[in-house]
């Protein structure tokens, strides 16, 4: 598990970034804190000897998805939306309750789980070739299923944008 001090620092940064993301009133700042959170998680993966997963985390989340988020927020000018207070009064309490439930679940899992299993995970060979072999042998069905799902989403986008373009011409 690498250096415990390093882990604690990174964990603190990740948690603070996550909290700031929720607390921030500016949508752009929220997105930026989320990027920081993703990058910290990626470094955690690096400490766990999983550089491939770490780089996937950075490319896909921090690089692609968050850029898309920021792009849309900036294009729509959503950062200037005024007065988006909490939608319901009870939201804070529900959120707090759910957070407690989540932490309790983690605690139970930590207490009951086998503490030696995490070491076994860290010792695995996480090279891209090994990862690829696992993906295409043991997990080939879920992998292909995900592929079909993503393809469906892509076709959906093409169909939707085509329809709206036609409507635009008619109007």
């Amino acid at each position: 598990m690498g250096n415990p001090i390093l882990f604690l620092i990174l964990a603190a940064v990740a948690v603070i970034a996550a909290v700031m993301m929720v607390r921030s009133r500016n949508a752009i700042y929220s997105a930026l804190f989320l990027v920081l959170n993703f990058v910290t998680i990626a470094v955690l993966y690096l400490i766990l000897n999983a550089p491939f997963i770490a780089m996937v985390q950075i490319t896909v989340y921090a690089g692609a998805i968050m850029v898309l988020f920021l792009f849309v927020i900036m294009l729509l000018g959503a950062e200037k939306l005024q007065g988006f207070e909490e939608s319901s009064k009870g939201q804070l309490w529900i959120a707090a309750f759910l957070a407690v439930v989540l932490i309790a679940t983690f605690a139970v899992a930590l207490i009951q789980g086998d503490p030696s299993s995490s070491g076994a995970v860290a010792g695995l060979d996480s090279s891209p070739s090994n990862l690829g072999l696992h993906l295409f042998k043991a997990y080939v069905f879920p992998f292909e299923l995900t592929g079909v799902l993503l393809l469906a989403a892509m076709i959906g986008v093409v169909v939707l944008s085509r329809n709206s373009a036609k409507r635009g011409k008619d109007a």
Partner: protein
Amino acid sequence: MSFGILEFLKSLIDLTVFDYMRGVWGDQRFVEPVLDLIGALVVSTFCLLIVIFLIWLERKVIARMQDRIGPNRVGGKFGLLQTVADVLKLLSKEMITPAAADWWPYNLAPLLIVIASLLMWAVLPFAPGVLGVDLNIGLFYVLAVSSISVVSLLLAGWGSNNKYALLGAYRSIAQLVSYEVPMILSLLVPILLASSMSTIDIINAQTVPFILVVPISALIFFISALAETGRTPFDLLEADSEIVAGFHIEYGGMKFGMFFLAEFIGTLFMSGLFATVYLGGYRLFGLEEFVTGGGWALGRLLGLVVFFIKMFAVYFVFIWVRGTLPRFRIDQMLNFNWKFLVPLTLALVLMVAVVEKLPFMASLGDVSRAGVHLFANLLLGLVTLEILRRFARKQRMAQEEKLAARAAVNSGSEPGNLAPEAVAAH
């Protein structure tokens, strides 16, 4: 801890400085982190300083191509100190943050973009054994880190609170995100051939340099590298004549200098990556094995020289392209990427994968396998050219028909006499 000058000199001959330091300090816990730190410092300082030379080189070469002399006042006949003076000027300027700008994004962006462009150098091998880390995901690391610079451009464009800056940021996102696709796909080809993403493994696999094995992949990588670094003809993101410098319009002094710096470091890195992935890096037709056999520092020096010559040869082509081509329009840029480069690269990846697994390939030697790949590549290139030719012909015919029909309507009784004004009016 002792420091013997004689031992040090001896170490230069048969070891590198790092091996010597390991020998002096022994196997203490702090040795590796300290050496890593020194290495990172040396590489980053080198990158930051060589930009001074790169800018001078670019101005001089571009000037020669445009039949000018270029910088020739500061620092002798060749204006060698011109860029030094420019850097001093930039450094001595006031650091301004516009009143309407958003402080954090505005000031974070220049830092982030330089950090991203420096981080990429970690996996680039300069000479045998001289590189930051040999990650087993080397090329993927480069792509991941370079995607951070996209965030930085967006921050700069939005944080400046200026419509031209925001426009420039939109353009740059559209361009960088699009051209990342053919870049990743074209890099997949050398990865397939070397069956590894590590830069060292890719160099070791190049008995024949990959540019002779898969020239189309090299060409596509070069084009997308041009686009990713935002250089002419893909300099729409700063397009001085349209959106007055784009995302960094509100930056001045060294904050502007940081964007400039990142662009030049990025371009040099892309040249280095091209040299590593397609030109065989520090290899020189097997000569380096003759010299580096004993792990000599001199052999490493030879590797360094070879690598630098290759890197600067590619860099010269970057400058050459800038001196030759005009800027794309944004729709041309996007169409070219999505309707031409991406399909072509996908076809190329599929083809290389199939050719690599052909039944007779396993029994062939390195050179004949390279020949088969080259043949398949040339075939794909010819097919592509033929498709392009037919497409262009169809377009041209349609255009001519349209013009002819209009001319017939306009000139009435004299269809043979095409009035140029009438054509121009449409």
